[in-house]
Every structure is written in structure tokens, then in C-alpha cells.
């Protein structure tokens, strides 16, 4: 298949590729292998690169948001940057929620961050405890962190880098709590960078990953800021303390949808990188024997290895298409949003919540699977996969904890189901629920359908996934109703059904992904590319069935015999995809610098380069380690 065409299909535009060359060839962006640096050193490197990047953006005159996004990705490789929140949340919030006067005052001066999460509260925003009390006498807000749990905790760039933060706090005015609002709070002295009096700020210490990021804590003790520092585009506090309500808070949905769509894209990208490394390495590594007397085969020739990696490869492709779909849909309807038409937003919001969770969970497990498929060498930092994993895994938690996200989707599904039950029609991705009412009239319908599934036809498999989703949504909704009938409170009933509800959401998301992947096939004009992607799509759908056979059997969507066929077909597809496996990861078109892996090198010269890499390890700086003189020698002489 044509690799270059493929990469042009869905990943990069040509301008991105030239940006990449610009950065990779720029000597200013070179640095020592990050694996050998301490956390402080990694932080310093990140700051150096971020600062440089800001200056270079100006130098090259890059202003297009997409180009800025790619330029940043390329500059920073895959590592987080301490300025990340400055660019995303801080500036975005300032742009959307400030008056023009505020914008002029704040935008150019500062490095900011966005301080929302507290030690005791994350996803449940209403529980945040930080207070901002208005004092009309001085026309100031007084900010306080009243408890240990209220200390701001986790914001990126807060620990060491930022001099300002947008702080989310419960607003009190005229003795009443008005809920969460955003305030611009200076935290460090301009010029000296020392914390201001009343501010306690620092780094939260080492983490699983994100070494270069100074995630921070912030404690405020009677810290006063002028009234103008409240972001007042929507809600306002007048000089006398009168509170003016905002018009609508649904608008924040838009930002959330956008950020979660980025995570779906990130799931695809991170999994693609891990697949690239594992599949290339599996073609280089030889081990054991398949046939007595023959040379050791590439480990990619073992069925078990293919079974670990190819479904993930198919998943990576599937997620690319899903990410693109959400982004497109968001852009399509964001025009409507600006004109006040929010009708499509609830479904998109519900769908992206679930897809964020589904894709990040799957990619999280998939990256580890890829790493383990590389055996012992996958465990070395030189494989690059440990870094991909530790950088990616928090996305299961941030921007909405995954289980909570799944339950948000479930709420929408149950609501849709209830609408259908009461005779209304629903539209969009949940429209399959409309069929349920018809099935109730014909009880034999579901069983009769089972023979109709054609396991070599993606369109037919979409129907199978649809039937599974419908069945699980219905089961969850019925269980919820049964709990309610036991005179449980609404909340109790919901809690006691939540495992079922999460399963229903997962099935719904799975259906959406298979559907989008299948739909994509029709758009591919190149026959060879379409053929190989059809195989991947089939593998994705069939593998999903074989991992969830219980759902399909129990609902009578597939028979025992069909399940056996599905399992068999999955293995046949592995052999069919095998010859294209390396080409399929080459199509992702990751530059070696961007991949950051000795095992995944494009040229496959793995062992020589592992040796070269190891020689640079900090423990090898001297031939005899200082521990010998300090500990070993004295011990031997004493014994």
C-alpha cells in the first residue's frame, strides 16, 4: 500500500511537515536525552524550550491556530510543558471571559495558569472550597484557602513557573454564596519571582510522569485582589456588592467538548506511537523456533504476538477516525452555538464524555500491552513506551474522571430510552433505541435476527453492535426502574445500577466507533488502501466481539457457532494483516525524534543503538562508581 498517501489521508498537512523539518533541524532545540536528566533538569529544559518556542513563533510569524498547535507538538516532542495551561486554559479563559479592558491589562504581562482542582476535590466542581469574599469597603475580594483540602493542587505550571493564576473560588457577596467564579490572582512578584505575602506556593513533588511539569499547590491567606480581577464577562459584582447573574452557563459545554475531543485524538496518537514501536521491534527481534531446524523467526510471526498487537493497530486507526469525527462535528455545530442554537450540544456533550473515557481507557491498556509485547527491553526507558504510558495514563483522570464520564453518557442514554418508552422518537447516534419499541411488539424479533449477522461484512457487524448497545441500555434502564420500584431514592437507585449503566455506555461508544470506522471505508478512493483498512475494520469489530462474547451470546445476537467463527476469523485476519503490519505503522509517519524510541527506530538498528544509549547512562559516568569507595570497600575490609 502507499504509505505516503496514507499519511496524507488523515494525519498531517504539508505545512505541518515543513514545520517539523524546521524544528528538527534547528540546533536551538537539541538537548541531551531526557531519560538521563533529573526532574529539576527536565523542568529546566522544558522551560528553555517553551521560552524559545514563544520567541520562534514570533520569529517565523506563525499565527494560524492549527499551525501553532502543530508547531508546539513538534517543538516539545510528546512532553508536557509548564506553559501548557498558560496557552490553553489561561489565555482561552482570559479571551472568552474578560472584558476588553481586562484583556488589555492582563494578556501581555504574565505567565499564567488555571487553578481549579483542589486537594480534596477534582471532578465534582461544586465541592470546591476556596472562597472569595467581597469587601465593598475597599472594593476588593479576599481570597482564602480555609482548609487543607481546599489548597489548590495539581495545576500545571503553578509550582515554579507562573506569576499569575486564574483561581476558581466560591464567591461570597452580601453574605451569600453565589457559587464558583474565576479570579485573576497575582502570585509572584514581577521582577523577583518571589511569592507574594499571603501566598504559599510550591511544587507538589514527583509523579508517575510529567517530570518536566511543575504541577503546583497554592494556599491563600486573606489575600486581597481588586474587584476588577474577577472575570466579569458573564457574571458581575458591582462596586456595592450587588451580584449580576450570568445569562447561560451551557456555553462552557463547548469548551469541554473541544478539550475532550483533543483527548480522543491523543488516545489515537499515543496508541499509534506505541504500536509503531512494538510492531517495528517485533519485526527485528528473532526468538525461539517455529519450525525445527530453521532459523529463529521474527517474533511478529507468532500468532500470540500478532494477537497482542494487530487488534491494537486496528484500534489506533479506529480512534483516529473517531477523533476526526468529533472535531469536525464540533466545528460544524460551533457556528450554531455562536448563534445561540444549542440543540445539538447535549448529545455531542454526552457522546464525547463517553468516547473520552472509552478511548483513553483502551489506549491506556493498549500502550501497556505494546510495551509488554516488547519483553524485557520494553521495560527499559530506551524503548520510549514507559514515557508514552506515564504521560498518557492521567488522561483517564483529568478533564473528567472516566467512570464519571461514562455515567454522564449513561444519563443521556437513559433519558433517550425513557423518551422512546413514552412514545417519542429520538435522533442522532441513539436513534437505534427507537427500534426497541417495535421489538417489544414482536418478541421473536431479536432471536430471529441472530442468523442475519454476516461476519465478513462490516455493515452487518455495525448492526450487531447496535443490537448489543440497545440491549444493554434497555437492561440498565430496566434495572434502574426496578430499583426505583423498591422505593429506593433516585440517587440510591442510580448508584445501585451504576455498574450496569457503565456497561451500557461502553457498548454505546463501542457501537459508535465501529460505525464511524465502517463509514470511513466508503470515503477511501484508493482501492489498495481501502482493502487493507477494510481488513483492519473487520479485525476491530470482530476482535471486539470475541472479547465480549458474553454480551452477544446472552442477547441472542450471535449463536455459539457464529462465535466460534468469529474467533477463527480473527486469527485468519491476523495472518492476512501480517505482511502489511510494518507499512501500516510507517503510515503514521512518526519521525524518529518524535518517536523517541531505540526499539522503534525506522532503520531497525536496535541492538547497536541500545548499547550506544546505555553507555550514556548517568551510572556509567565513571568506570568505578563512588559507591565502591564509600561502601563496598569499607565493608570488605571490615568483614
Amino acid at each position, binding site marked *: 500500500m502507499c504509505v505516503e498517501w496514507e499519511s496524507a489521508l488523515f494525519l498531517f498537512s504539508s505545512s505541518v511537515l515543513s514545520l517539523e523539518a524546521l524544528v528538527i533541524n534547528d540546533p536551538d532545540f537539541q538537548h541531551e536525552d531526557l531519560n538521563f536528566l533529573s526532574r*529539576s533538569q527536565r*523542568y*529546566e529544559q522544558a*522551560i528553555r524550550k517553551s521560552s524559545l518556542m*514563544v520567541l520562534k513563533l514570533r520569529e517565523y510569524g506563525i499565527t494560524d491556530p492549527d499551525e501553532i498547535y502543530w508547531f508546539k507538538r513538534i517543538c516539545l516532542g510528546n512532553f508536557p510543558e509548564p506553559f501548557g495551561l498558560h496557552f490553553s486554559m489561561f489565555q482561552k479563559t482570559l479571551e472568552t471571559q474578560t472584558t476588553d479592558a481586562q484583556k488589555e491589562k492582563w494578556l501581555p504581562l504574565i505567565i499564567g495558569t488555571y487553578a481549579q482542582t483542589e486537594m*480534596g476535590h*477534582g471532578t*465534582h466542581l461544586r*465541592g470546591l472550597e476556596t472562597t472569595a469574599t467581597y469587601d465593598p469597603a475597599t472594593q476588593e475580594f479576599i481570597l482564602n484557602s480555609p482548609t*487543607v483540602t481546599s*489548597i489548590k*493542587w495539581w495545576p500545571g505550571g503553578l509550582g*515554579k513557573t507562573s506569576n499569575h493564576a486564574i483561581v476558581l473560588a466560591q464567591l461570597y457577596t452580601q453574605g451569600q454564596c453565589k457559587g464558583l467564579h474565576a479570579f485573576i490572582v497575582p502570585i509572584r512578584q514581577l521582577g523577583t519571582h518571589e511569592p507574594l505575602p499571603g501566598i504559599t506556593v*510550591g*511544587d*507538589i*513533588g*514527583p509523579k508517575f*510522569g510529567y517530570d518536566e511539569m511543575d504541577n503546583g*499547590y497554592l494556599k491563600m491567606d486573606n489575600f486581597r485582589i481588586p474587584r476588577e480581577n474577577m472575570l466579569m464577562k458573564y457574571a458581575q459584582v458591582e462596586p456595592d456588592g450587588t451580584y449580576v447573574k450570568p445569562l447561560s452557563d451551557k456555553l462552557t459545554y463547548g469548551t469541554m467538548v473541544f478539550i475532550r475531543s483533543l483527548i480522543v485524538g491523543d488516545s489515537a496518537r499515543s496508541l499509534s506511537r506505541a504500536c509503531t514501536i512494538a510492531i517495528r521491534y517485533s519485526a527485528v527481534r528473532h526468538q*525461539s523456533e517455529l519450525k*525445527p531446524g530453521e532459523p*529463529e523467526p521474527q517474533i511478529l510471526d507468532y*500468532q*500470540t504476538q500478532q494477537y*497482542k498487537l494487530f487488534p491494537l493497530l486496528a484500534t489506533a486507526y479506529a480512534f483516529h477516525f473517531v477523533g476526526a469525527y468529533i472535531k469536525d462535528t464540533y466545528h460544524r455545530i460551533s457556528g450554531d452555538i455562536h448563534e445561540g442554537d444549542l440543540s445539538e450540544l447535549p448529545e455531542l456533550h454526552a457522546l464525547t464524555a463517553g468516547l473520552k473515557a472509552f478511548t483513553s481507557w483502551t489506549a*491506556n491498556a493498549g500502550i501497556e500491552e505494546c510495551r509488554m509485547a516488547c*519483553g*524485557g527491553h*520494553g*521495560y527499559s526507558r530506551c524503548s520510549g513506551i514507559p514515557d508514552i504510558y506515564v504521560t498518557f495514563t492521567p488522561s483517564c*483522570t483529568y478533564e473528567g474522571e472516566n467512570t464519571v464520564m461514562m*455515567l454522564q453518557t449513561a444519563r443521556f442514554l437513559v433519558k433517550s430510552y425513557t423518551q422512546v418508552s413514552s412514545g417519542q422518537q429520538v435522533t442522532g447516534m441513539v436513534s437505534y433505541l427507537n427500534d426497541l419499541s417495535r421489538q417489544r411488539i414482536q418478541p421473536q424479533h431479536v432471536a430471529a435476527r441472530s442468523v442475519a449477522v454476516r461476519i465478513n461484512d462490516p455493515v452487518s457487524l455495525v448492526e450487531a453492535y447496535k443490537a448489543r448497545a440497545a440491549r444493554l441500555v434497555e437492561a440498565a434502564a430496566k434495572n434502574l426502574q426496578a430499583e426505583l420500584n423498591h422505593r429506593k431514592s433516585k*440517587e440510591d437507585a442510580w*448508584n445501585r445500577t451504576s*455498574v450496569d449503566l*457503565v456497561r451500557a455506555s461502553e457498548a454505546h461508544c463501542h457501537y459508535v466507533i465501529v460505525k464511524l470506522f465502517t463509514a470511513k471505508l466508503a470515503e477511501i478512493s484508493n482501492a489498495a488502501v481501502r482493502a487493507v483498512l477494510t481488513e483492519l475494520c473487520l479485525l476491530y469489530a470482530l476482535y471486539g466481539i470475541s472479547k465480549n462474547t*458474553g*454480551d*452477544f451470546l446472552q*442477547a*441472542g445476537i450471535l449463536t455459539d457457532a457464529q462465535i466460534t467463527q468469529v474467533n477463527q476469523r480473527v*486469527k485468519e485476519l491476523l495472518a492476512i494483516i501480517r505482511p502489511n503490519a510494518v507499512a501500516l505503522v510507517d503510515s503514521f509517519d512518526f519521525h524518529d525524534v518524535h518517536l523517541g524510541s531505540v526499539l522503534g527506530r525506522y532503520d531497525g538498528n536496535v*541492538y547497536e543503538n*541500545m*548499547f550506544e544509549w*546505555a553507555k550514556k*547512562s*548517568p*551510572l*556509567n559516568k565513571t*568506570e*568505578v*562508581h*563512588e*559507591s565502591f569507595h*564509600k*561502601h563496598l570497600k569499607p*565493608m570488605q575490609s571490615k*568483614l
Partner: protein
Amino acid sequence: MALMETGKYSQGSLLGSVNPDLASERQTASFSVEKLTAWLDGGTEHTRLRRAVVEAIECDPVFSRENQYFESQNERYEAAVRKAVHLQKKMDEMGWTENGPEFKALSGDLAFLLHRIFTRSISMLGSDQQIAKWIPLATQYQLIGSYAQTELGHGTYLQGLETTAVFDITTQEFVLNTPNISAMKWWPGDMGRSATHTVVFAQLYVNGKCYGLHPFIVQIRSLQDHSLCPGITAGDIGPKMNFEHIDNGYLMLQNVRVPRENMLSKFCEVQPDGTYVRRGSQKINYFTMTTVRISLILDEVVIPLMKACTIAIRYSVVRRQSKLKPGEQEAKILDYQTQQEKLLPQLAAAYAFYFISDYLQELFDRGYREIQRKNFDMLPELHAFSSGFKAMVTQYSTSAVEICLRACGGHGYSLLSGLPSLYTKIVASCIYEGENTILFLQTARFLIKCFMAASTGQPVPPSVTYLAAVTPEKCPAKNKLDFLSPDIYTEAYQHMAARLINSTAAKLQDLVQSGVKKHDAWNQCTVQLAQAAKAHCHYITVKNFAETVEKLETQPGIQKIMKHLCDLFALHGIFSNAGVFLHDGYISGAQMDMVTASYLDLLAVIRKDAVPLVDAFDFTDKTLNSALGSYDGQVYQRLYEWAQKSPTNKQISPAYERYLKPLLHKTLSKL
């Protein structure tokens, strides 16, 4: 939180009083924690001894792990060496032994673990003279040993190792060489910086003939100044996901000569004239490997899983989030069904694996006694057991620890939670001492063989007689309570395992009969074979758990809660692998709904005892080394105080002066 009601939380320590959210969990325990602990330890006397040892070690500041998460690779290596040396001194003082409980109490971060393997391999593989010569040197630490088997290009497949040892009859020496880059020894612990000697596995050549892999003692560093010996290239292989404290190393040999006596020769010897002599059975070598696999299950896998459960469950009753009922206080996150469904099955698994490790240990002790009597009959079964269970327990527990980590949300991601280190350590166990997929396939080979034998009426080892047993076609359960009967679910597991082995064997036979070559047929069935082996181990684990519970009748208080955990472990397995139980209709769709209902009911039951059940593991705070999992539950205060000690808060970063200031000024000057 009540802790905060005082309003004072500045820098003074509030640590000491127990968080009321955690205290209340302990008041409602349905059983005596102390009794459960004693039972797990094997008696109150064992508990007392274990606690005394832990106390002795933890009150010694040299063994402190408080700064572990802040240290660089270099610092951790140095600390590990310092601790190992100190331990040696302490052992002499206290009269502790190598195999005593003290080692376990240290919970890692020691150097010289491979030194112990070095010593053990000499005792197992060396002749009496070799043992007399080397063991005293090693125990006195006159030398530091390592064990060099794995190469850059080869791990599990030992025959593929490429290092050579050629016998030179004129000098009576072996000449060792690394013929190419993939033959470089890679990964051995203690070898990168510490070791002076190592046992090298190499292909033996005498008079041009290859005799396969043999072990040789090779000196790699000077005993005087620790510099590398001539012909040796060695160093550290660089940073890894964990084990930063261990100097995993590489080793290249160029015409390194060792005397003839350095080949470990209990079983094989090259005589002065070059005659190769084999004596006794090499099967015993297998036994060494199998014992290592069995002993790692408890120390490297089950204990870390218990720690992870302790941390995640204690944190989940301290953490409050959202409201379950309007107007009430925010709920403990462990009160959410989804959180219970994440954590409680992992807790049940920790108990299940603790019991299976006990069972295996007993089996191996019995096997060892037989082997000493030169009876090797049990070896194939022991080998299959050690491979399959090592693979299943490591794989299951690794994912369990990861679930615990993610169940702690953002704070789980902090190293101070202790969970990332537990995860990155346990995950390595899926690879070392045999890659899991390969191990499952070894067990599968044994199972297929036994199945063939059983179906032709030949005798098979006791653990697999079920393959020939006749079981009912359908599960007899009538309602959800029936699924709380161990007979019902154990039989379901047995049926499922037998079916998977049976159908895979049939598939293999079909392929061979249709003309596919044997090895191709094997490769085409490997996905199924691995699944069958896993099912077998899962079945034995469930069965053993049920039998363990049965034996507890003298302790009804404990038996009751253990029964709940056993039910949960079994039903969780059916719930999460529904397809294989439904497949041939053994369990019907309606019965699967009963399984799900019983399973979800159990979550709520075990929820009440969740904290006492982890308290019973009896880990000290220092052992856990976690801000989230401490006994007193003062999570937030601990996080806050500990984070302030981070080097990033103590050292001045040059980043501001060097980069941020110029950047800001440039912006300012443009205005």
C-alpha cells in the same frame, strides 16, 4: 473533615489522631482483625516475630525510605548499596539468617539480590569442591556476585544464547567470547556497577563440538580497585521503569580465560583431556527455575497487590466526592458501586492468590522431598504449575495494581501515593523469570498431553484428573443464591476449563489430520492454548480458595468473611468472562443475570468490612510508604507536608533567571 474543624493546620503536625472517616470503618468490622492477621501469618507467634523484625528494621534510620521518591538513579543506587552493607552488619549483630523473615521486612531497595542468586546457583550447580571454595568468599562478601544469563538478543529462549566458552586443552582453560552485539549479556542485576564476579551462561565447545549451555564463574572486576578486568566491557544499561536502585548491567567478553575448574560441574564436567562427562539428571535445573517462580509469587506479586489494595481502599473511605443524597455530606467514594466494583474484586484476588501461593509452596516442598529421594515423577506437573501460576498471578495482579492506581484519581498519580512504584515494579514480573505468554504455552503443552493421556484412560497427575471427569451439561443453579454455593461455581469453572482444553486439543488434532505440519498447527492454536492454560489456573485458584474457606470451620468469624471473598472472586471471574461460560450453554442467559445480581449484591456486603480486611494485612505506614494509605488516614495533611520536602521546593531552579525573566522582559519591552 473533622480534622479541619480546629482551623489550625499550618505547619504543626496533626498526624497522630485517626481520621474519623477511617475510624468509623473499623468500629463496624464483622470479625476480629487481629485474629485474621494471626491466621494469615500462620499463628500468633509468627505475627509477633514478624512485627518484632519489622520494628527492628524500621526504627533504624539507615533503612528509611522517606526520600526514596525524590532520589535520582545514582542516589538510589548508592542508597541501595549503603542499605545492603548496613544490613550485612546488622545481620551479624542480630544473628539473622539469609532465609529469615528479615529480608521480607525490608520491602525492597536493597542491592546484592543477584549476589544471593549467584550464591544459590553455585550451591545448586557446583561440585563440592566448588562450593567449598566459593561459598565462604561470597558469604563473607570478599566478592560480589551476579548471574548473567539473558542477552541483548535472547531472553526466555535459552537455547538461542550466543555467548561461547571454548575449551583450550593446552592451557586447561575456557576462553569466553561475545561473538556479536546481540550476544552481549544484558539486564543482570548488580552487574552494571557492583559485581566482581558473575556466573556466565555460555555455549560450551570442546574440540569443535557444541555441548549446549553451561555455567562458568567469571571475574569481571578487580578485587583491589574495582576496575574492569582485561577483556571485560561492562556497565549499567540505563534508566528503567523502576528498579532504579539496581545496576542492571551489560557485559561483553573478549577472549576472557577462566580455569577449567570455573565451570560449575555438579552435573557436567569437562575433564583435563577434553572428555565431556554428564552425571545425574539435569532435570534438577528445571526445579531451580520452578522454585524461583513459586517464591516470587508471594514476595514480588501478592504482597505488592495487598499493599496497593490497602492504599486504595483506605484512601477511598477518606476521599469524599459528590453527593449520593441531596442535602447530605459528600459521600465516601467507596460508597459508589462503581468504585466498589473496581477495588473489591482486587481485594478478593489478593486473598485468593495469597492462598494459592501457600498451596503451591506446600506442593513444592513435597516435590522437593521426592526429588531428594531421586524421584522425579512430580517434575512435569510442578513445572507446569510454576509456569502457569506465575503467569496468571503476575498478569492478574499487575492489572489489579493498575486498577488500584487509577481508582485513586489524580492523587494516585503522585509518586507519594506509593502506587506508581508498586505498579512499575510488579509489572516487571510479567516478563522476568519467563515471559508470561510463553509460560502459559508451556502449561498448555502439559495440559494437552494430560488430556490426550486421560482420554485414552492412562493415569494423569491429580491436579488434572478433572479433564476426564464427567460433569453435567448444564449448570444446576435455580436462583441467584445458588451461585453462592462453592460447588456450583467451582463446577462451572471446572467445566469451562475442561471445555477449553478439550476443544483446543480437538482443533489441534483436526489441523494435523488435515495435513498441517505439527508446529504450524501449534502456532495456529496458540491464542486458544494460552486461554486454556489461564482457565485451568483460574479454576484451581477458585477451587483452592473454596477449600481454604472450608477448612476454617474452627473460626466462624473469619470463615464468614472469607466465604464472601471467595464468592466474590469466583463470581467476578464469571461476570467478566461471561462469554466462555455461556458459550456451550453450560450457563444460560438467565443464569448469567443471576450471577451478575449475586456478584453486585456481594459488593455491598464486603464494602462494610473493606477496611478491616486490608488492616488485617498488617502493613506499617513505613512499609507502605504512601501518603494516601497510612493507617490514620490523614491523607491531605501528609501529602501537603511531604510535598514541601520535595527537592523542587528546596533547591533554587535556575529556570527563572535564565529563561523566564528574559522572556517576560522581552514581552515587556515590546509594550
